[in-house]
């Protein structure tokens, strides 16, 4: 506590120096602005996410969730994937919600992970944004929804088949004693989830800001014109840029030199895995989990985007 107060006081006294130092250095001020952009943009969604996750902590116990979900795991995953359409937000909010739903793993684990991948990509807000960004290509909306849902389902089924509970090294705090009021349970859950998720969001936003400054944009623009190379470049770009899933459609629409299929890959990979999500998953679930889950999601997302894309929008 004393450390925090001392540090902040020092910063307050040095505020003018800090501000001028950042403003006079082009790379530093760009990185700072991009960092603030990613962080400030994510905060409202994160707050919505932790409010939902607090409500889940109060009203939805893992036992109750297991009773609601269909008995067969494969069907439960399917239900969770379609249910992802109900959370209007972007990917930052869905990580804490999924962590709450995940509980101790068990029966609901696979369904929670499917929900985490599906929610940011197929909810109505994101689909409308995609339709607005690609007014002449309504098939992009269809292809995006199909490919993202497919990715989420495959990862859910893969988890129920090969997932190991010991990869989950981060546990949620034990639910409070039954004497605590509902408000206290809610506030404690929301407080805990925000602190954890936002800390890792800082890490991810900083990584995105650094990459923005270090990697020149023309590298991607010149490499992306070839179809196969384009898929690889756009997938990497989706991970590196860490855009909000409500905005990525507009960015993809503006990359007119790239064929449609790589742009679809960009839209499918982005909400499922990027640097900021990786950091948040590592924080909420554990490093062993994120190190396996994120690369696997990356490959599955590329594959299902290519498969669905070739079928729906063709190799353009």
């Amino acid at each position, binding site marked *: *506590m004393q450390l*925090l107060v001392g*540090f*902040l006081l020092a*910063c*307050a006294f040095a*505020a003018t120096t*800090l*501000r001028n130092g*950042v*403003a006079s250095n*082009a790379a530093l*001020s*760009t990185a*700072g*602005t*991009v*960092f*603030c*952009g*990613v962080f*400030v*943009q994510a*905060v*409202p969604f*994160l*707050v919505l996410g932790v409010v939902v996750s607090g409500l889940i902590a109060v009203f939805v116990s893992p036992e109750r969730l297991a009773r609601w979900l269909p008995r067969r795991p494969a069907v439960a995953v399917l239900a969770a994937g379609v249910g992802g359409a109900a959370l209007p937000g972007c990917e930052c909010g869905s990580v804490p919600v999924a962590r709450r739903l995940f509980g101790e793993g068990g029966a609901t684990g696979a369904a929670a992970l499917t929900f985490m991948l599906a929610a940011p990509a197929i909810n109505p807000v994101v689909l409308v944004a995609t339709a*607005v960004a*690609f*007014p*002449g*290509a309504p098939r992009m909306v269809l292809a995006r929804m199909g490919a993202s849902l497919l990715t989420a389902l495959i990862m859910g089924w893969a988890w129920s088949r090969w997932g190991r509970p010991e990869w989950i090294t*981060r*546990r949620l*705090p*034990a639910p409070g*004693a039954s004497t605590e009021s509902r408000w*206290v349970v809610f*506030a404690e859950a929301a*407080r805990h989830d*925000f*602190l*954890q998720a*936002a*800390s*890792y969001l*800082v*890490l991810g936003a900083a990584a*995105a*800001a650094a990459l*923005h400054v270090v990697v020149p*944009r023309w590298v991607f623009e010149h490499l992306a014109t070839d179809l196969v190379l384009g898929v690889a470049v756009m997938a990497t770009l989706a991970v590196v840029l*860490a*855009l*909000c899933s*409500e*905005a990525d459609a*507009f*960015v993809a629409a503006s990359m*007119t030199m790239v064929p449609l299929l790589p742009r679809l890959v960009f839209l499918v990979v982005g909400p499922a895995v990027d640097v900021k999500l990786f950091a948040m998953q590592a924080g909420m679930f554990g490093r062993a989990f994120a190190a396996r889950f994120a690369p696997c999601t990356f490959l599955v997302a590329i594959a299902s985007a290519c498969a669905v894309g070739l079928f729906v929008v063709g190799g353009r």
Partner: protein
Amino acid sequence: MSRETENTVLLLVGIGIAMITVSGAFTRYVKPGLLPWLAASAVVLIALALSAIFRDIRRGGPRTDDRTGDHVHVHSHGAGIVWLLVVPIVVLCFVTPPALRPSAAAPSVTSVSNDVLNQAFPPLPPGKAPELSLPEVLMRVAQDTSGSLTNRPITVTGFVLNEAQGVDLGRVVIICCAADAQLARIHLGGPAAAQAAGLPDNTWLRVEGEVKPGQRNSIPTLQATTVTRIDAPANPYDYPH
């Protein structure tokens, strides 16, 4: 990190968000439309922090995690990471980085130039030379099938970009947040372009002029008739929607 420090950090993050929301600095990073959501987030965060602090005070001292044995272990395990939240507090409250400069935005020729996206745009607003945003002008040049810009003077605001082949009018466009910024630009030509040519980069101008049709696949040229210097607008970016 102790529980009381965590609460303080949570409170400060809320205050930081509230500060940039009230001061308007948040428009350097995200769209103005996010204002109510940012305000609500700040209120929720401050309320969560204050309620935790008051609960702890009522209990007499910070609540200790003594409910279960292994719980304490887990909490201490991942708590150091919360120190990272000091970074946005310092950056938002004390540094407040400036709005993006044009060199940091990705160059974009025209916003969207696929032929499939062509459509008839609604007619321009009435008046002698209606105000249009630069991204809208570029979209109309590239995609409008109704020729709404033909023979209509328009007024466009932007900053000076000196290039080897002449002077451009530019504007940084963001869609969602500063991470997706793009640079929209239009060449200046015509009788008044010489007035803009002598000015340093980043001088803000209001330019009246006409865009000749048939410039679909390149950066279009605005034939300027009058050029007026203006102060930098409060809102540094432009938004396509």
